[in-house]
């Protein structure tokens, strides 16, 4: 790797305000939302259009220098962590919505567009962009594409990959390819589907065509308190078995409820477990489904039930849920969040085992999860100032990941493998599968330049450092879920 000739070449393209090389300038890019990892890149470049992105990638390839594309840096898996002596391509200025076609119900956007901005732009047409990661007010579509981001409403409408119709991408050597198109249907292998979630290893999305949906006419949200997590889990089973298809089904445990109280004054009932179920759609259908849902919930012997009939009441229920993560920060100096998935029917087993692990490690774990699709979010609390505390928390996190794999699930439902979980991918897939992924990666990127060291175990491991919550998280702008 020869950084200096590359730096000279970049300096010819970018002015000093868009080529950052001084340590003080680079500091902001050293971590993403997984602050336990830090790495200083050789430089950060800030392109203004797709041609500059393509040219930068070509230069990196020419000089055999690895690069990471970065949006808002909200990855929870260290996915946008810089590579030592590599280049960070900051895509925030590629933030144009190039086209919003209300009749065709699509939006063509650049990668630096903020997730929520798409829905805001679509709103006057009665449309919205469905995937709603909790960081949606700051995370970018490019990052959502790279990590196939989810959100609380995945159960019914799926994740990012279910809403990307087409893309123009720069492959890791700068060659440009068009994948998919504007139709809901395609011909040939589903290349947009394969590119989404590839964690930056296949290159950089330059333009993304998104599907927009009509805004649901109405929402009905119910909050039910239970005397145990098990009872809340049984209620989920009953709802699922009934044939209802809610937009979201969420569960919080006692510690998470406590955090929501401390952090957001959510006014939740004090109980060992809370269940949130939300129906969405046209008014007539939702009314009928809601009657059925309430009857089902009554039969599961809840301690208390609250219904949201207005937008305000709905917002109040979600406020505590959405704030639970950052609020956990009030209970302990720091925490790690995992996002393993288990089969829905094994949720009870998984939670019991997490409880047992928590006790045996003497580490508190709060649980908030997307119960509808078995996606756990255990929050492992620790104090980073204690010698070895981070390492022990990571060890516990690793055991939870292995538990998810053992129960037939996945190590990640929506955060991606990134830096953090790459040692665990081979526990989910065998050597043949890992080799196939390596082969495809090598064929797409013969020099392993694009986001080197993420997802696939390769290169030397970065060391963990404790640095506390991300500044944006402290400010309550982003949430770890």
């Amino acid at each position, binding site marked *: 790797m020869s950084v200096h000739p590359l730096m000279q070449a970049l300096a010819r393209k970018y002015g000093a305000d868009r080529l950052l090389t001084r340590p003080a300038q680079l500091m902001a890019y050293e971590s993403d939302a997984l602050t336990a990892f830090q790495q200083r890149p050789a430089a950060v470049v800030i392109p203004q259009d797709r041609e500059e992105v393509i040219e930068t990638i070509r230069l990196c390839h020419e000089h055999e220098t690895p690069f990471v594309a970065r949006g808002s840096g909200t990855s929870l898996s260290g996915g946008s962590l810089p590579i030592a002596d590599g280049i960070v391509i900051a895509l925030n200025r590629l933030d144009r919505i190039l086209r919003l076609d209300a009749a065709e119900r699509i939006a063509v956007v650049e990668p630096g567009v903020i997730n929520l901005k798409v829905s805001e732009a679509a709103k006057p047409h009665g449309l919205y962009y469905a995937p709603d990661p909790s960081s949606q007010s700051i995370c970018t579509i490019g990052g959502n594409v790279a990590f196939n981001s989810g959100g609380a409403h995945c159960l019914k409408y799926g994740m990012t990959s279910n809403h990307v119709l087409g893309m123009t991408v720069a492959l890791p050597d700068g060659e440009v390819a068009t994948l998919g198109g504007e*139709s*809901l249907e395609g011909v*040939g292998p589903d290349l947009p589907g394969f590119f989404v979630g590839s964690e930056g290893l296949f290159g950089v999305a330059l333009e993304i065509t998104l599907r927009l949906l009509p*805004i649901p006419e109405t929402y009905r949200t119910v909050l039910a308190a239970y005397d145990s997590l098990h009872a809340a889990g049984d209620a989920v089973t009953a709802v699922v078995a009934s044939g209802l298809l809610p937009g979201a089904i969420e569960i919080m445990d006692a510690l998470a409820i406590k955090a929501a109280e401390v952090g957001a004054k959510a006014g939740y009932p004090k109980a060992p477990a809370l269940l949130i179920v939300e129906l969405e759609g046209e008014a007539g259908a939702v009314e009928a489904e809601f009657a059925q849902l309430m009857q089902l919930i009554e039969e599961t012997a809840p301690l208390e039930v609250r219904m949201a009939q207005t937008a305000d009441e709905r917002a109040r229920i979600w406020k505590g849920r959405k704030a639970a993560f950052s609020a956990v920060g009030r209970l302990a100096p720091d925490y790690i969040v995992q996002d393993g998935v288990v089969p829905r029917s094994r949720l009870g087993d998984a939670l019991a085992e997490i409880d047992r692990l928590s006790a045996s490690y003497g580490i508190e774990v709060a649980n908030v999860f997307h119960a509808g699709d078995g996606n756990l979010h255990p929050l492992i609390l620790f104090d980073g100032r204690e010698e070895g505390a981070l390492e022990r928390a990571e060890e516990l996190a690793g055991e939870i990941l292995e538990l998810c794999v053992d129960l037939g699930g996945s190590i990640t*439902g929506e955060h991606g493998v990134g830096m953090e979980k790459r040692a665990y991918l081979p526990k989910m897939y065998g050597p043949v599968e890992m080799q196939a992924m390596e082969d495809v990666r090598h064929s797409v990127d013969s020099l392993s330049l694009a986001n080197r060291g993420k997802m696939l175990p390769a290169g030397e491991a970065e060391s963990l450092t404790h640095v506390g919550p991300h500044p944006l998280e402290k400010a309550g702008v982003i949430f770890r879920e």
Partner: protein
Amino acid sequence: MNTVSEIQDAVKGAKRIRVRGGGSKPALSQRWCGDGTHLLDLAGLQGIVDYQPEEYTFTARAGTTVAEVAAMLDGKGQYLPFDPPLADRGATLGGTVAAGLSGSGRYRYGGVRDFLIGIRFVDGRGQEIRGGGTVVKNAAGFDFPKLFVGSLGRLGVLTELTFKVFPRPPAFATVEAEFEALSDLLAGLNAVTGSAIDLHAVDFAPAEAGWRLWVRIGGLAPALEERAGALQEIISRGVGRTGLLRLYRDQEEERLWQEARTMAWLAEGMGLARVPLTPGRIPAAEDMFGRAQPASRRYSVGGNLLWLGWPESGDLGETDGKQDDPRTLHRLLMELGLRGVQLIGRGPRSEGLSEGGEGPLLGEPVQNAFLRRISAALDPEGKFGAW
């Protein structure tokens, strides 16, 4: 081929491989692949491996028929919401995925790409590889299941598939409306698809005079009547001079969509091609296909998909007066800037596929640098007819 190891041995020993499932899409399974091609018949590789109704998932071998799966799911009040087509002709799960086929119901919750969550496939080296998983939400590793949707057997041999399923709505209703002019139909279409009504399917086709539109809604029976009324009102606002509206319920309604799944509208002896597009491209497509006889057609997925019936001979009746220049479907699609796949019928001559010059891919080329690189990794010797 009844076992995976037989498939692996066959792949290792063969120079070129072609795959056949139920044979319901002969233009794919009988395509010409060059001399010395080994045909793998997967109809014997069948059976449900696992079904977890409470998880909304099942796993089955690739040769399992769509009909068998539909019956199994129906027993638990569940279904594959994307309405996999051609089940009556023996379509298999593997063939449905490889052909990338979704039917009318794709409009509501997504297509085969959105419901396939895990696969096993044999690659060009004869190794069986697992991709995706068996849980409904999974972001770990490369998404091989999506890659294999529409791969036409040219990246590897699918051996086992895991799908997500959904509960089947307890009841459906369909509103049928007639329009005199295409522009009226498209206005009605836009009014319906832009509304907040949750639509399960939106199909339309040329009728005796003008156009006929079918809009399907589903859900709890008590609310359905009122919702169908609201839907009719929205449609009638956009209806042109003909304006005939009709409501279908129960078996009569079910039959409408069963006929869509079986392509009952397709005349005997006609070929069938599948052409993705967007509603905005329909006027141009109609300009071309509306004049071309005897082409029959049906638009599906809210105007995102055109099913095109085509004479098996491949030549259009209309030749622009130049006998030596048959206006093939491939050329027409090129002119429109669209792509298509021939599914049934020997198909028109086409530059879409290598060697034989006659094959399932029509119109704009699909190949690009990304696909070429993936193909080179999974099938380095080009046994499956490299992309």
